[in-house]
């Protein structure tokens, strides 16, 4: 049987062979042989990199071809939506790279479904992009700008005050500025241990709110530094050199990166963050934990009969019973921050309900929504309900049980 992800299968097999204990001596031999062959290449890369840094230090850097835009254009009416043309703005915030060369900067984009997305990378002449080093663009040392429509998955919907509060932390990423697919700048190249020592960065950036007045963070020098988050979003950007290839991965959420120690807000409130230890979670801080906009509809405005019926999923091999739920949507859905959620009551579930359906696209007012649960349904009587829910981050990943406004309840008997 062929696999769905043959590239993943191949990568795993390569990793299995490369790291297998029985293969270690051979690997080391290959490594030593390879090292000699690599010397000229490494020298060339160093020269190119130094050349780029030196040129950039004087404000000159050769501009290369743009970073190709992903061939997968997002659906403007689904999930976070697509970038709205003309909304990509590079913020004036800059962070120096420890090795010099082009600064780091971040840009914000608006999407068709009402979210704001952020990206961080290197910057030249007000354009975000990546440097041809660390295995990308043939290590040509040139600056390769990102297209304005190159989007990101780091998106959030504004809260009731119009603030978008969220942070991204990228650990052990290459100095080239190619941070990976999650932030929409996946240009390949090295990562983690494959990057040259000294070429790894921890990059922390995000929005902490327009009312944030100061942000304290741990600097590379071991001392604490204070910066003023940039209006109007309360943007911050911190770039640090790292040699820690064990501490990798990315963080996306309302709380800032691991080096941020304190944020102070205009009304005197503050959030403090102790140095993280493995497995620990931040204490909740109300000033950061922004609530999504208050639901603008009441149950009376949304109330509609909900029809649920057992649904026989047929196939050439037989079939199984599932549940189909349909209702008339009295409120339109036009943003990523709102969805209709269909839940089954389930006393054994942690939250008392099991999410069986979640709308992810625009819905016109008055249209009939039908969702089919993907699961086989247990025989017997089930009860459930449909709610209009608000989520700060697009998608069912962030669904919170018990929130939202009730549309209607249903009861269904599955044979």
């Amino acid at each position: 049987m062929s696999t769905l992800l043959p590239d993943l299968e191949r990568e795993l097999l390569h990793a299995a062979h490369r790291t297998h204990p029985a293969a270690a001596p051979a690997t080391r031999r290959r490594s030593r042989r390879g090292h000699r062959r690599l010397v000229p290449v490494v020298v060339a890369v160093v020269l190119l990199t130094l050349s780029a840094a030196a040129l950039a230090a004087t404000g000159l850097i050769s501009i290369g071809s743009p970073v190709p835009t992903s061939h997968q254009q997002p659906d403007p009416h689904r999930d976070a939506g697509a970038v709205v043309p003309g909304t990509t703005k590079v913020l004036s915030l800059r962070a120096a790279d420890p090795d010099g060369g082009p600064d780091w900067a971040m840009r914000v984009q608006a999407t068709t479904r009402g979210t704001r997305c952020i990206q961080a990378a290197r910057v030249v002449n007000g354009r975000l992009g990546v440097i041809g080093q660390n295995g990308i663009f043939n290590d040509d040392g040139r600056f390769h700008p990102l297209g304005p429509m190159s989007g990101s998955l780091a998106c959030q919907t504004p809260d009731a005050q119009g603030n978008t509060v969220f942070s991204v932390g990228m650990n052990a990423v290459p100095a080239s500025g190619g941070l990976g697919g999650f932030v929409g700048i996946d240009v390949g190249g090295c990562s983690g241990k494959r990057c040259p020592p000294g070429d790894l960065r921890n990059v922390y950036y995000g929005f902490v709110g327009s009312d944030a007045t100061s942000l304290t963070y741990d600097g590379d020098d071991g001392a604490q530094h204070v910066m003023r988050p940039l209006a109007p979003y309360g943007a911050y950007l911190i770039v640090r050199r790292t040699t820690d290839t064990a501490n990798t991965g990315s963080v996306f959420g309302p709380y800032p990166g691991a080096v941020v120690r304190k944020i102070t807000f205009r009304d005197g409130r503050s959030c403090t963050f102790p140095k993280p230890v493995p497995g620990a979670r931040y204490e909740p801080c109300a000033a950061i934990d922004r609530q999504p906009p208050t639901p603008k509809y009441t149950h009376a405005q949304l109330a509609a009969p909900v029809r649920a019926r057992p649904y026989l999923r047929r196939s050439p091999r037989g079939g199984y019973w599932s549940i189909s739920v349909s209702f008339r949507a009295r409120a339109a859905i036009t943003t990523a921050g709102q969805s209709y959620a269909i839940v089954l009551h389930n006393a054994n579930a942690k939250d008392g309900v099991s999410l069986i359906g979640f709308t992810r696209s625009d819905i016109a007012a008055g249209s009939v929504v039908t969702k089919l649960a993907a699961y086989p349904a247990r025989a017997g009587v089930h009860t459930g309900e449909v709610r209009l829910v608000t989520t700060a981050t697009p998608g069912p990943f962030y669904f919170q049980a018990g929130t939202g406004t009730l549309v209607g309840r249903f009861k269904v008997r599955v044979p």
Partner: protein
Amino acid sequence: MRLDGLDDAGLLDAFDASPDAFGVLYRRYERPLLGFLIRRTGQAELAADLAAETFAAALDALRRGSGPDGVFAPWLFGIARNKLADSWRRGAVEDGARRRLAMEPVPLTDAALEQIDALGEDTRLSELVAGLPGDQRDAIVARIVEEHDYVSIAERLEISEMVVRKRVSRGLATLRARVEGSPE
């Protein structure tokens, strides 16, 4: 040695001598795991990302000699559940295992994403789950799909925790046998 003919336990033993055994385990569990993850996340990209990190973490553990005490499938799905829960908490999928293994990023094609999406819509795995003997199906759905712990499942089904574990184990074994025995 023909690895494809080995059961999971045999493959785990064979891994000590041949890393190719992991490839067989991957082929055996890729679709069930992707199906499990797409149903929990509803997003094909996310399911693929979680599956990649899950398999990488499994490989990383095996090469360090800290594989499963018991059978492979519950251990693998346990890793996946932990990755999923961790992603919920962090709001992002970690890639620590992939980085430890120095794995290259894996491109996702439209065709692969559509196929993963299809796993969440109406899958052969769902059919296979639905076609399990009743006691195994209930145990699999409660443990793997609904993610209840063994104690609460035992209370709900009014059987011992040991029996629940056996039913889950048998159910997974049955599923694997049917997956292997069914045409593409």
